[in-house]
């Protein structure tokens, strides 16, 4: 099971309701391909850093999906053939998250050990007193 993050940019002139419909359709496409959309995040309209097909702004939507590669492939295929989508970009995030989790865990572990050592020293000091 993999987790992907997919960001896509929709043409700015598309109405809000149509964006919702589009998002809904894409979600169903993912589910149909055996994946699951975990999170949908609409960033709304923002300025593009560069022009894409002579557009200066776009409506950004973020999908987070779990499932195999087929789910992502289906989503990307749909995005490619959907007219109002300017650009899309997908990354696999589960491995990175695992790494981050490991780092965080290690840091907490270290902090706890340091604290325990500090507390032990303090206890000894009070015993001596």
């Amino acid at each position, binding site marked *: 099971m993999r987790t992907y993050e997919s*960001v896509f*940019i929709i043409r700015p002139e598309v109405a809000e309701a149509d964006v919702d419909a589009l998002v809904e359709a894409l979600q169903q496409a993912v589910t149909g391909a055996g994946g699951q959309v975990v999170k949908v995040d609409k960033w709304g309209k923002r300025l*593009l*850093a*560069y022009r*894409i097909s002579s557009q200066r702004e*776009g409506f*950004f939507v*973020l999908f987070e999906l779990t499932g195999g590669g087929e789910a992502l492939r289906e989503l990307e295929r749909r995005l490619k053939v959907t007219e109002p989508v300017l*650009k*899309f*970009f997908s*990354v696999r995030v589960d491995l*990175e*998250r695992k*790494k*981050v989790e490991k*780092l*965080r865990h290690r*840091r907490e572990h270290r902090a706890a050990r340091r604290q325990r050592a500090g507390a032990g020293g303090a206890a000894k000091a009070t015993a001596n007193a």
Partner: protein
Amino acid sequence: MTDEATVPSGGPTRAAEPASGGESSGGARERSAPPGGRGRSEGPRRSGPEGPGRGPRRGGGGGGRRFFRRQKVCKFCKENIDHIDYKDVKVIGQFIGERGKILPRRVTGVCTGHQRDLKVAIKRARNIALLPFAARA
């Protein structure tokens, strides 16, 4: 009367001379600052022949330069940021120049590992038009 008047008037002008001299040296410091601020020329310049020539002119400026060059601690290490997210334009945007180029480590002070993560994040952000590939200066 006139003699007396000229003597005090001479006093202030003489007193003003060192003050104006101080201002001009301050101006020189300001003028010499921009080339140092340009990232790439900064490194070689310091060890270059201009280095010793600069010292005496500045006097206390050595302290000023040190002040200018400090804060060389990796931002990500300091704030315990494990993962640099490509969506976080506010953070990533600090590490690109006005032309949209990735700033070198020697300018920003980011550590090796985090610079690599940063590079990946910036390149991803460029891919979805959150950051420019090339910005107009």
